[in-house]
């Protein structure tokens, strides 16, 4: 492992305490180790990897949720390759949607969807799409309005409503439109125009999107393998990963975390530190503060909600069941949301060639009916629902197990942002505590975003000043980062000030807005009219002043069009009036046509961008 030679002000060993051994926590520890600093990682569970763990049941490996390794962040990609080496496989992606006893291609193919749904549904899709474009719902506050305005009500009802509600456990009209806007970043009109104009960039972007859709990388034995390897390295190099260690108290003094109190195998231990990085759920973090956080902060923490998740893994006595990596189950007649075929992620996930292992994913809330069901009942439910889909005969299911994953997704409901802001305000007063990861920031960060927050947190400990909340909030953040590893961090520092909202708009954006903004038709028409009128007026006056035997015999010909015009003082005014009129008409028409064709061009780019987002929309839910 290489160490960072540029390190100047580094804390000494074990002065950094990291809460949580998921991708964010372990990345932080690994990055610190690279700079020669050992840290202490505290993990509540008995396994590492957090949401990206791999469960091993009788040699069958299960991934909790299906973690595709794909990122635009070069430093993250580099770390994956560095740790996994030869064990990092490139996999082809195949996934379909199951709805109404039929399978639909995914990413969406419009013709496949229209043919598969029949004439009535296809007609309704087209009509409701046109309707949505003509009469979009305003203001756009909820997820259902956001999707309907873009894809039409009928398509939304058929393909997005059921699945979204299965995943999030709440009606789509209660999900904030902001969530969709944050997740579906490809729809930025300015970005789309920029990509279209800057051909080279556009080509790269298409390659990236294509790559995400067509293939991904995956560790031989699931994502947990990555984090087990990182843990081995940390332990070998002198860092300390404490498993089964629950944080009991976070002791604050003088606006600083002094120590954390943990309970490890029944014993209470105090871990002091100079710097603390937390990836534990914010709600729990706030509740562990000693002295307790102010009442309004505790209330805000209680308002943060999570969606939980369980996987029923079934061992099937058949070598091949279906070719997909996973299938989205949109059918409202079954509760299962997604079915993973782990063997198609990596052959090594299944110990025996003649067997297959499927993961039926159920989205639920901790303590609700599904969550509280007995494992045997859940396995039985899984078998029945698998049979209902017609994918596998229930008689082929020979074994099964259940894995419950609490707090899998932070919920973006109508109050979360307000609560989060209260908490952020409070935590900003604590100098040596940084929040990273998905639950650590109550932000729908994917694995790569979580890792990036950890990397930046480490840079902050070493003296940098990055705003971790900008990660996964601003597209440019990631694209900048993917260019030049170290330099980009420095560039970002200057472009990402520590303010809640960036007010600086890039020069390119400003230029695009200026170039594509509409002409004021009346103003342009008036300007052309005045100049045309003046031209004729001055030409007439000039010839009068010049004099001669016959004044302006040629200009007089204008009188054939401008009835009443002569080369005289009176004629100059009449000529001005006529020229102004025709100039005005010409100017107005020019501005109108210019605005019309510019609008058409923007609309075309927008539709292209929306269709591209529509194709893999489910990935973002």
């Amino acid at each position, binding site marked *: 492992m290489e160490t960072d030679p540029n390190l100047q002000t580094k804390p000494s060993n074990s002065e950094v305490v990291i809460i949580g051994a998921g991708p964010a926590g372990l990345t932080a520890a690994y990055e610190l180790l690279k700079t020669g600093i050992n840290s202490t990682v505290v993990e509540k569970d008995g396994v590492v990897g957090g949401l990206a763990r791999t469960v091993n049941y009788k040699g069958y490996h299960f991934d909790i949720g299906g973690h595709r390794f794909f990122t635009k962040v070069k430093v993250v990609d580099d770390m994956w390759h560095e740790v996994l080496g030869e064990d990092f496989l490139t996999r082809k992606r195949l996934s379909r949607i199951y709805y109404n006893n039929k399978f639909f291609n995914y990413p969406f193919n419009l013709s496949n969807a229209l043919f598969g749904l029949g004439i009535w549904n296809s007609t309704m899709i087209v009509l409701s799409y046109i309707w949505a474009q003509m009469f979009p719902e305003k203001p*756009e506050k909820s997820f259902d309005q956001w999707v309907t305005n873009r894809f039409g009500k009928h398509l939304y009802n058929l393909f997005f409503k059921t699945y979204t509600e299965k995943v999030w456990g709440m009606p789509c009209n209660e999900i904030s*439109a*902001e969530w969709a*806007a944050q997740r579906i*970043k490809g*729809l*930025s*009109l*300015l*970005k789309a*125009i920029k990509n279209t104009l800057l051909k080279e960039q556009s080509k790269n972007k298409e390659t990236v999107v294509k790559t995400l859709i067509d293939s991904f990388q995956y560790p031989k034995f699931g994502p947990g393998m990555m984090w087990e390897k990182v843990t081995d390295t940390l332990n070998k190099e002198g860092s300390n990963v404490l498993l089964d260690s629950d944080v009991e108290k976070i002791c604050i003094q003088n606006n600083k975390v002094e120590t954390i109190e943990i309970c490890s195998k029944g014993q209470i231990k105090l871990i002091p530190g100079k710097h603390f990085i937390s990836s534990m759920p914010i709600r729990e973090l706030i509740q562990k503060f000693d002295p307790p956080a102010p009442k309004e902060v505790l209330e805000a923490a209680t308002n943060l909600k999570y969606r939980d998740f369980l996987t029923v893994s079934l061992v099937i006595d058949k070598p091949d069941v279906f070719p997909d990596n996973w299938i989205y189950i949109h059918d409202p007649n079954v509760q299962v949301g997604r079915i993973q075929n782990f063997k198609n992620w990596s052959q090594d996930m299944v110990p025996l060639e003649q067997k297959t292992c499927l993961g039926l994913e159920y989205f639920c809330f901790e303590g609700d009916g599904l969550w509280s069901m007995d494992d045997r009942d859940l396995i039985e439910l899984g078998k029945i629902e698998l049979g209902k889909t017609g994918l596998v005969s229930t008689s082929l299911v020979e074994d099964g197990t259940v894995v419950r994953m609490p707090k899998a997704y932070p919920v973006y409901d109508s109050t979360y942002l307000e609560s989060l802001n209260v908490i952020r305000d409070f935590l900003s007063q604590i100098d040596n505590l940084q929040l990273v990861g998905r639950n650590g920031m109550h932000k729908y960060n994917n694995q790569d975003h979580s890792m990036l927050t950890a990397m930046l947190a480490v840079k902050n400990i070493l003296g940098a000043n990055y705003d971790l909340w900008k990660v996964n909030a*601003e597209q440019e953040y990631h694209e900048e980062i993917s260019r030049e590893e170290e330099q980009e961090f420095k560039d970002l520092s200057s472009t990402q000030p520590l303010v809640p909202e*960036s007010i600086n*708009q890039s020069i390119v*954006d400003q230029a*695009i*807005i*200026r170039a*594509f*903004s*509409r*002409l*004021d038709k*009346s*103003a*342009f028409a*008036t*300007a*052309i009219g*005045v*100049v045309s009128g*003046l*031209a004729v007026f001055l*030409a007439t006056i*000039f*010839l009068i002043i*010049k004099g001669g035997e016959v004044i*302006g015999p*040629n*200009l007089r010909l204008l009188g054939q069009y401008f009835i009443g015009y002569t080369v005289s003082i009176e004629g100059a005014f009449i000529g001005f009036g006529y020229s102004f009129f025709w100039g005005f008409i010409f100017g107005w028409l020019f501005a109108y046509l210019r605005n019309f064709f510019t609008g058409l061009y*923007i609309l075309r780019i927008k539709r292209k961008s929306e269709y591209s987002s529509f194709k893999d929309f489910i990935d973002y839910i």
Partner: protein
Amino acid sequence: MTNRSDEEKLLEAVALLNAKMLGLILGISFGLMIFIVTIWLVIKGPQLSPSGQYVVGPHLQLLSQFFIGYSVSYIGSIIGFIYGFAVGTISGGLIGWIYNGIVLLRQKY
């Protein structure tokens, strides 16, 4: 929501013209236009007029009523370019100035 406000900004923005640039563009365009049509007629050579005389560009020659010193000749093409450039620049600048003035006035009220 940044994306949304960007989109709104784009769709609501009214263009302002760069009057100097518009003047320069129109000036060069007018100047070149007169230069080229003059040169073209000179290269084409004299044509028989209804009065039975051979003349070069009798109609374009009328420009000399406004552009003193202009003629349909090689030197005239240069003089025509200068006149055309001047008229185009003034016209373009004036169009931009009037347009911007009206737009800003409308935005103000």
